[in-house]
């Protein structure tokens, strides 16, 4: 057991750090420091720079542009990106549709779509949830009727993030009503410009309008846009859940936030105090750092050799990582709000809308706090994660005992 990074890994870390420092545009990196949200343009710009270096899809198989890095190297790479304030990869592209196409797509689909995904020429969105199918996703009702060489899709999706700027959607649809709901679901790849498709933006509590409803009115989808086999869509969706474990915690994001928080809370605020001097704030911050360290060690344990006792699908550790990571990210944002103090409350922007974009990190910390309430809801609510963990606890072999 040796938990130190090797000299090669340290050299790699420096290589990544130097590359990001010299190649990433300063205006994008400053956005992270100021707590401003990245937009699509920022993400595409930054990720295309990484794409140029061959680094935009490190986790993919090398045949399709992956780097073949060890899990620890990938972790280091992501850590450095967070540290440098680089926008996260568009996870729908890189961690969802990309791996699903590689695993289940036809050769034609792969050749046509994967290079465009890696280069951020296409922006994808995810059509899963519906008004009556959230945590109970299998009860979805959007229908796809096979007619000759195409499907006709009718129904509605909700909580689809940024569909108004997407080129493509991968969409779970019902292709069979008899039998178990999970066994009548297919996955279709839908061009967002297809006639019959309407997008309505939803205003959320953080002031943004990134969530949407998407309505399908007899939308014509060519049958070659079916991913894999008909009625196997649920399996492909579940594949996603087990597949993406390497950054499910987003622990690097929380660490970068804490690093930022330490710098700003050490300065005198406009109220005249130094937040870091307050014992309770300082202790709460130390607690978060301890918990982040424990989480990062657990993440590393999961991705390293000999780390966990079970690597199979009955391993509840993925849910543990997602649950804990989402809660700690929320705590980080709460502490940022706490550090902002009343500066978070009374600096409306000139247009008068108190929730709109502001140049000052403090007044943006309130909407960030609101935005992050979603972390324990999307991607499987914390309650569902606990259900999953418990189910595996009570059905699998007895936990504990192994080191």
């Amino acid at each position, binding site marked *: *057991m*040796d*938990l*130190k*990074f*090797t000299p090669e*890994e340290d050299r790699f870390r420096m290589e990544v750090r130097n590359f990001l420092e010299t190649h990433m545009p300063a205006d994008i*990196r*400053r956005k992270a*420091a100021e707590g401003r949200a990245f937009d699509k343009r920022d993400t595409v710009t930054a990720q295309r720079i990484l794409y140029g270096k061959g680094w935009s899809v490190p986790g993919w198989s090398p045949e399709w542009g992956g780097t073949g890095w060890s899990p*620890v190297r990938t972790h280091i790479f992501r850590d450095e990106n967070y540290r440098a*304030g680089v926008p996260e990869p568009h996870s729908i592209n890189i961690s969802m549709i990309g791996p699903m196409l590689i695993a289940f797509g036809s050769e034609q689909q792969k050749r046509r779509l994967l290079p465009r995904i890696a280069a951020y020429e296409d922006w994808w969105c995810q059509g899963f949830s519906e008004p009556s199918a959230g945590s109970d996703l299998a009860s979805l009702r959007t229908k796809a009727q096979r007619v000759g060489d195409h499907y006709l899709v009718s129904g509605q999706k909700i909580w689809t993030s940024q569909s108004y700027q997407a080129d493509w959607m991968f969409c779970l649809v019902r292709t069979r009503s008899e039998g178990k709901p999970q066994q009548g679901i297919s996955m279709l790849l839908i061009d967002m410009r297809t006639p019959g498709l309407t997008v309505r933006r939803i205003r959320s509590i953080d002031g943004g309008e990134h969530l949407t409803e998407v309505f399908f009115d007899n939308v014509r989808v060519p049958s070659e846009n079916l991913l894999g086999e008909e009625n196997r869509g649920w399996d492909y969706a579940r594949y996603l859940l087990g597949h993406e474990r390497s950054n499910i915690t987003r622990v690097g994001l929380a*660490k*970068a936030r*804490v*690093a*930022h928080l*330490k*710098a700003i809370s*050490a300065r005198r605020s406009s109220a005249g105090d130094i937040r870091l001097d307050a*014992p309770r704030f*300082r*202790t709460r*911050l*130390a*607690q978060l*750092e*301890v*918990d*982040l*360290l*424990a*989480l990062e*060690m*657990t993440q*590393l*344990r999961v991705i*390293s*050799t*000999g*780390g966990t006792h079970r690597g199979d699908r009955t391993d*509840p550790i993925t*849910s*543990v990582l997602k*649950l*804990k990571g989402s809660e700690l990210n929320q705590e980080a944002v709460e502490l940022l709000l706490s550090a902002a103090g009343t500066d978070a409350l009374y600096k409306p922007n000139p247009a008068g809308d108190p929730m709109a974009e502001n140049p000052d990190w403090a007044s943006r910390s309130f909407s960030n706090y609101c935005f992050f309430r979603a972390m324990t809801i999307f991607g499987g609510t914390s*309650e569902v*994660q*606990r*259900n999953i*963990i*418990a*189910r595996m*606890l*009570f059905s699998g072999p*007895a*936990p*504990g*005992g192994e*080191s």
Partner: protein
Amino acid sequence: MNFEISEQQRMLRDTVAAFLEKEYRLERRCADPGGRVGRRAMWRRFCELGLVGLPFAPDYDGISGGSVENMLVLQAFGGALVVEPYLSCVVMAGNALGHLGDPDMQRRLLPRVAAGDVMVAWSHSEAGETVRASRTAGGWALNGERRLVLGGGMADQVLVTAVIEGGRGDGWGIFLVDIEQPGVGRSTYLMPDGHDAADLRFVGAEVTEDRVIGQPGAVLQHIAWVQDLGVAGLCAEAVGAMAECLRTTVEHMKTRQQFGVPLSTMQALQHKAADMLMELEMSRSMTMYAAACCNDEDVAIRAKALSAAKVRIGQGGRFVGQASVQMHGAIGMTEDCKVGHLLRRLVVIDMLFGDSDAHLQRLADAGGLIEAATW
């Protein structure tokens, strides 16, 4: 980065597990809670397995066991509720003797320790009560009091740290004292978790030069290292106890029925069990990290790492222990049930060597773990 243990370490772990499964059951402990004779006999069994001499070099019947070996043994001991003072006598005193004792002392003492003929406990305290060492014609004399010496009830000898009168160097020395020698008084007791401890009084207790460990005035770094080994060891023991809490609770929930259904079908209880697993996994990771950090030469890094581990495991252990009693209902409140014993040990572990609040405060005041951004 490699979390795997070696084949030899695996064998050690499995040997200890098999032994405890066969010879260390809760009923035995409940039947004879204070029996010291039974404990000495068990200590000899540990010696037969080579566990007591583990940290020593092969010349002295050891395998030069390090922090990972400590972790594996203590994790198993934690789950089995072992009360014999392995932490104090092997992980702490054993390592101190094995790494700091001069060759003569090692030749005289280590084989006897490994065989179980003599038990040596470790005793250090920074705050409050101090033991002072003053120079005499024949060597040194110790005066003062030391409370809560772990394993002090069973031990024949104690490695005592003392402040050097008049100051010298870093101001500390380590002295080997015979409990039965003139000038040493002892009162023994059991802690709430069934482990034995002692308060020691020193009145002009003499220590000859050949029983001084290391260079007086130049041992504080070594004391810190031994204390860190102790903290890492406690974390490992806690993880073992937490795992046993969870295992016992899951079993209970599967079999116990109320309202016509097993407890395991009730969502509120399922969620609590999920939270127990999360705490266990976080603590398990931090225990591995703590064991790895014991080998780090950077004292500041080590100190922060071990404080962080102690915080997490103190909090996690208390949570898991409490939850397992809760989930067992009234049965969990009985002495016949294992979880009450596990809870008591987990809480004592939190309270030893600085509780989680103290370590958290220490970390906070030292600037935490993550460096401030420099945009």
